[in-house]
């Protein structure tokens, strides 16, 4: 059982990462990641929606006839997103101001429906909840890293806008790497999103290939050791 959870976690964060492997939900990935805070915040909101939608679809899955499962799933997701939107607006207004227009977009993010359809519709509630959350966290990490990269290259700062999330006191955590930096506009504009995402995918693939090559050489060595 614990093995299954480990597998789910690993899948969400690395093996099947929705941001750089499955490449689902590109719209927010490319649009929101102009800064690290923006990317992380929307990523976390998505993770919460995914955990809740997976967790609530799974227990009712046997009552949903397969013909109408997609509309029902969408209904569940849309309801949850709206509830989260209202709750944020009521209890975390500054954060809602920053993310407001992106939260409704979570409904149409493919990755949410994809996980409900491919995981929650076939598995029990607890693993489904974990799967949704881990897939979402994987996406949040990619959004955060991509946002951080674009912000750093584009504006020379990191975590700007943190005060919008945590109040004015958080302003001191904004890192200004180079005060005399005039910015590299390309990184903040849409092309920067594509270039940055491409680099991240390349980096992940490079790590995977190296890992595979290493595994190959060690198994070759083991084989040759056996032969001799």
């Amino acid at each position, binding site marked *: 059982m614990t093995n299954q959870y480990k597998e789910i976690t690993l899948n969400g964060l690395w093996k099947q990462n929705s941001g750089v492997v499955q490449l689902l939900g590109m719209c927010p990935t490319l649009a929101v990641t*102009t800064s690290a805070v923006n990317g992380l915040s929307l990523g976390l909101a998505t993770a919460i929606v995914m955990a809740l939608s997976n967790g609530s679809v799974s227990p009712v899955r046997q009552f949903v006839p397969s013909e109408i499962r997609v509309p029902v799933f969408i209904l569940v997701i849309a309801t949850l997103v709206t509830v989260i939107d*209202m709750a944020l607006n009521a209890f975390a207004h500054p954060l809602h101001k*920053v993310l407001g*227009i992106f939260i409704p977009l979570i409904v149409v993010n493919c990755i949410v429906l994809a996980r409900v359809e491919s995981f929650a519709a076939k598995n029990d509630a607890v693993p489904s909840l974990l799967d949704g959350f881990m897939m979402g966290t994987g996406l949040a990490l990619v959004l955060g890293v991509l946002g951080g990269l674009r912000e750093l290259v584009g504006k020379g700062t990191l975590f700007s806008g943190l005060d919008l999330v945590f109040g004015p006191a958080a302003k001191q955590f904004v890192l200004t790497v180079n005060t005399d930096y005039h910015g590299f506009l390309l990184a903040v*504009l849409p092309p920067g999103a594509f270039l940055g995402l491409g680099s991240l995918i390349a980096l992940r693939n490079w790590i995977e290939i190296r890992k595979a090559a290493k595994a190959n050489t060690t198994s070759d060595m083991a084989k040759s050791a056996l032969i001799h």
Partner: protein
Amino acid sequence: MAETPIQHTLKTTLTMMIFALLGTALLAYFFEITRVPIEASEKEARLALFKQILPESAYDNALLTDVVELPPSALLGSQHPTIANIAKLNHQVAGVILEAVAHDGYSGDIKLLIAIRADGSISGVRVLAHKETPGLGDYIDITHGKWIQLFNDESLSKSPPQFWQVKKDGGKFDYMVGATITPRAVVKAVLKALQFFEQNKKMLFAEVKNTTITSVPSMPIQREKP
């Protein structure tokens, strides 16, 4: 026993309806419990914005509810009726907060909030929403630069209309090289709002006595989609 097609259809429809009902009920419930906090935080956010352009000491009335509805005006760039908030100190009109839209920005409309004192001088200007190029034209936004504060204490009597241009066009307003279209549009919009104020002073000052509008104008601060 196998289902007939009709039974199957009925069952499917019923399931869908139950889910729709459950979803609606959940939404209605959450709407109800979040309504008051949302209204309160929107009010608070709006007041905080007003505070940036009009110091709290400048008025003592309920700024959010003392409003005048303005018909669409070319000077304000508005195509729909807008709301002007009237600030009063000791029952005297102390200033007006106007919404204006500049249609000639680099990309899309630039929405402005302009506080004008009763003597016709500007107390402050803020950009509510814009779609200008990040890193280039967005310095009109207070979160990206102090440029918008150039308007503080400006007035038509201090600077006649011909000065209301960016320096490149022979006016008095600074701008940043590489993005002149954006400040040009903002300067023009602020000038026109001042002219609107001068032309409609009587109406703005008079109507406020008998307004009974009690609802908070719903104009959330927007951030445009990038």
